């Protein structure tokens, strides 16, 4: 653990100070960075933060995941896959399941978690996933794309 990462992690974990979780201390910019950070401890801390945050503000976590998907770097996709695979499946937004599964499969990362995401999908999304795979596309840059195709 180098000094910079340690300092960043200390700041990131402020919402846990006082042996309790206070979401008002969450810095969304820091959390966005943490999700795609090369340091595994920082990514793990981001998972703990999102896991607690989702209980009180699901929308905020969706925004974080949306940013992770938008960034699309290997670390952020990996963290999003880890979160979605371990969080309560009922909370897992179908857009994120599909998008992250596609990104994970395309980049050949976290293969088991990617598979778990596919397993968690509704049947119609699995059909969509298979067809997109067959077409060799990397679609779904917009939420509307999923809505349009998924409801077709």
């Amino acid at each position: 653990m180098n000094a910079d990462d340690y300092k960043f992690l200390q700041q990131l974990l402020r919402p846990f100070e006082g042996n309790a979780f206070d979401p008002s201390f969450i810095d969304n910019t820091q959390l966005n960075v943490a999700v795609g950070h090369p340091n595994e401890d920082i990514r793990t801390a981001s998972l703990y933060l999102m896991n607690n945050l989702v209980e009180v503000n699901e929308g905020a976590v969706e925004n974080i995941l949306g940013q992770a998907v938008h960034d699309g770097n290997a670390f952020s996709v990996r963290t999003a896959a880890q979160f979605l695979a371990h969080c309560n499946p009922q909370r897992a937004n179908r857009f994120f399941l599909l998008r992250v599964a596609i990104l994970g499969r395309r980049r050949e990362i976290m293969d088991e978690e990617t598979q778990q995401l596919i397993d968690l999908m509704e049947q119609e999304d699995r059909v969509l996933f298979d067809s997109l795979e067959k077409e060799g596309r990397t679609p779904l840059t917009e939420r509307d794309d999923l809505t349009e195709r998924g409801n077709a």
Partner: protein
Amino acid sequence: MTQPPVDKMVVVVHGTFASKALWWRWPSPFTQYLDSLSGGTVYKGTDFFTWRARDYDKDRRAGAKDLAAWVQMHPARDLTIVAHSHGGNVVMIATRHGVKMNRLILLGTPIRTDYTPDLRNVDVLHNVYSFGDLTQTPTGTAPHCRGEGRTLGDSAKVINHLAQNGFIGPGHTELHDVNVWTANHFDQLVS
């Protein structure tokens, strides 16, 4: 089906969010390292123990029951369990379900009041911690921190080990790194 008892076995238990990780599964570098220290006794079967690993108390308690059943199906006369993070709490709860072990090695396990082990079922407990590990506490201990959340009370069968390297000590995930083990002579905990 229950397997015939073996003389010695080493089992690695993962922590939160790590059920799909590879580091704790044979033949990862860490498990190969443990295998070399323990005379080739790391469990290598495909029906390895795992738990759901979400950050919920109910997952840890369910994992502990599953571990008790797994150990019953995989008996060993000499059992060592190496557990990372909340995986250590899964094992400590399992001791209350009667799981007996010769050595329990905790790596960065959040020490909490609600997961106190039944030490009658553990011959020796090595608790490895680091000041560079900020996941162990407060992230992992809230809201049931015991003491500072890192250490257990020292006794004849409980020994705390401070891991050191670099700036302030290894981070949470570095506690299962072979280089950290070598630098801190943790090989002695297993062999």
